[in-house]
């Protein structure tokens, strides 16, 4: 059941639906009073988290098999948009994915989490091998 005041989106693990998720980010961001620029930032951050689920959460399964959906929760609060992107995939050790936020990753790949941290005002990555991943991103309206 959805928490009061929370909008939930369950999206198949397929890149074709990420643009729809961005539409919801736009709508919920506007409701939370975010500026267009802040909404643009959250569109990228949330898309990156969805792309990660699609690319990494169910990597071990053979292709063609149906994977579990991405669960996205939007909590609009006064002057703040909080978005959770959750999967029940294989998870990872966030500490072992070295995130040197002082400079961007120099090689191809490894950009997703970096961009998320740069674009959201606050980020929490909850994950562990075998127990799925939850990325919580918050953007505040007034800064």
């Amino acid at each position, binding site marked *: 059941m959805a928490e009061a005041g929370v909008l939930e989106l369950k999206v198949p693990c397929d*890149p*074709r639906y*990420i*643009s729809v998720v*961005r539409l919801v980010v736009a709508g919920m961001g506007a409701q939370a009073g975010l500026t267009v*620029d802040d909404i*643009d*930032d959250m*569109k*990228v951050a949330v*898309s*990156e988290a*969805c*792309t990660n689920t*699609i*690319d990494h959460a169910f990597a071990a399964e053979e292709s063609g098999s149906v994977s579990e959906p991405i669960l996205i929760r939007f909590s609009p609060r006064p002057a703040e948009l909080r978005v959770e992107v959750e999967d029940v995939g294989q998870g990872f050790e966030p500490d072992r994915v070295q995130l040197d936020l002082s*400079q*961007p990753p120099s090689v*191809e*790949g490894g*950009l*997703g989490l*970096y*961009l998320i941290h*740069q*674009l959201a005002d606050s980020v929490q990555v909850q994950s562990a091998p075998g127990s799925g991943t939850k990325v919580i991103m918050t953007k505040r309206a007034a800064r």
Partner: protein
Amino acid sequence: MKIQTETEGDWLTVFSLSGELDAYTAPQFQESLAETFDRDLVWILVDLGQVEYIDSVALGILLGGAKRANERDGDLAVVCQRANVLKVFDISGTRELLNVCEDRGQAQRLLEQRRAMAMARNKRGGQ
């Protein structure tokens, strides 16, 4: 997303993209880029003037394209004005690497210069 491809002066491949470049649409551009390299074209201009959205997937493809072009003595330049798209280049520190320019003329001149330099280098190397 829409892709339009032109060749200018027999050496420059120009991609004009429009719409959104994400994990669903960007791979289509990646294929077009791969075909260009297959045809030994290594000077590439990517016009993102009509692109409203990019993320790390597009960035990875552009970085891969630039790397491949450089390895083969060519180069890649990006044209982009939209603030939200520029921001992704800025925070990822890829603006220099991808030769991000404000307009197409600037990008084309930059690639012309790089090509003249590469040809001069090859000439010296060949002597």
